[in-house]
């Protein structure tokens, strides 16, 4: 009985706790973003090979990392939600998906804009690019499945199964795309030899990675709060909250 009570109360306490956390992370993200951009544009020197075009790295790499990392986090929370029947973790997974998809899109977009001046083409069927594209498909599949199901609990569980199947498949997909790529290594450019990076470049990039982290946390919490309100609209605590807000 205690567990059930905990389950019921936890979205409520999480809601108020996260409400305090969103602005903190948002400000951290803004500060880190400004710092990272400053280092990226005004401190890091011009790359002797790529000229100024390399400055795309400061968003490209964080976006690519976040896209993959967020998928794992999403699958993790979805799996927890499925295994322990906790609503909050499932809501968290639902909230992560759009942000993950956005980062995946950004990684592809900036990759294309970086590729054009460097290799003369917007797109190469390189293993990494192709896997990133497939990752975008997986995100879109997850979101469309959840959007198509009216019953939120069923949406949570169905999404969780899909996310977990995706997680099992990602290494297989990545490995097969890599294999396919080496077989077809024709005119395409190899992206594997990364040029040695100046320390300031690395610093700038890492700051931007942290900025993306903070941003993701802030936005995901913000979204999960809305989802909680939408889903728990019939509960007593939401009504209480509404009354308090109206009184203010």
């Amino acid at each position, binding site marked *: 009985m205690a567990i*059930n009570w905990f389950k019921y109360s936890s979205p409520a306490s999480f809601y108020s706790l996260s409400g305090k956390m969103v602005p903190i992370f948002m400000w951290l993200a803004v500060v880190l973003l400004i710092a990272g951009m400053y280092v990226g544009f005004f401190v890091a020197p011009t790359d002797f090979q790529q000229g100024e075009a390399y400055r795309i790295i400061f968003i490209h790499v964080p976006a690519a990392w976040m896209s993959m990392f967020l998928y794992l986090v999403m699958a993790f929370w979805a799996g927890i939600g499925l295994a322990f029947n906790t609503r909050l973790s499932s809501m968290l997974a639902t909230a992560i998906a759009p942000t993950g998809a956005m980062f995946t899109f950004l990684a592809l977009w900036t990759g294309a804009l970086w590729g054009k001046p460097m290799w003369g083409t917007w797109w190469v069927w390189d293993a990494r690019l192709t896997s990133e594209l497939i990752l975008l498909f997986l995100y879109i599949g997850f979101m469309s499945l959840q959007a198509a199901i009216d*019953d939120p609990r069923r949406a949570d569980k169905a999404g969780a199964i899909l996310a977990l199947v995706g997680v099992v498949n990602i290494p297989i997909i990545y490995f097969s795309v890599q294999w396919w790529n080496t077989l077809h290594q024709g005119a395409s450019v190899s992206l594997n030899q990364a040029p040695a990076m100046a320390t300031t470049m690395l610093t700038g990039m890492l700051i931007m990675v942290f900025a993306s982290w903070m941003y993701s946390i802030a936005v995901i919490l913000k979204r999960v709060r809305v989802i909680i309100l939408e889903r728990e*609209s*019939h509960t007593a605590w939401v009504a209480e909250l509404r009354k308090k807000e109206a009184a203010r």
Partner: protein
Amino acid sequence: MLQGSNLVCVRGDRRLFKDVSFSLEPGGLMLVLGPNGSGKTSMLRMLCGLSNPAFGEISWCGTAISSLGGEYYSVMTYMGHLSGTKDDLTVVENLRISSALAGLEINETEAREALQYMGLSGRETLPVKVLSQGQRRRVALARLLVCQTKLWILDEPLAALDVSAVKLMQGLLERHLGQGGMVIMTTHQEIEVTAASTTQLQLA
């Protein structure tokens, strides 16, 4: 034997019923009553383990049915308002396949005997799609004759049945209850079934 304690059913945002408890012993009949939308079908689906109660527990011989799994399903027969018959298969094929699915393989003769009892003789090799609603219902109910399960959970078993078929069902239920079986059913029709004990479960 079968016990439910403090069951709560939530569908979407709405709570259909709460704190429903009951217990059913061998030979007992339980009628689940209530107006439309009061959660009768949800209740029966819960008792089958098709859905889980939001709170509360259903146990068979003292063990929760969710942890019994196949063991529970081999002593229980559920008939929902969907007949579970395939339009393209013949009457005999339908009965044999649905029995096999429920864990009991029967041969052609046994199947024909059961169908005859249900008043479907002469139609055994017709595809189900040419039958009327009432006849389809009889095909589905024929499974009750051949199955040897202890607990029957029936959702509106009398829907679409004519007077003679209702009589037939009444006999079938009484025989089952007389042999120490248990029946949980919903119905909107009047039916007189004598049982060792009859309980009524009223849902708000």
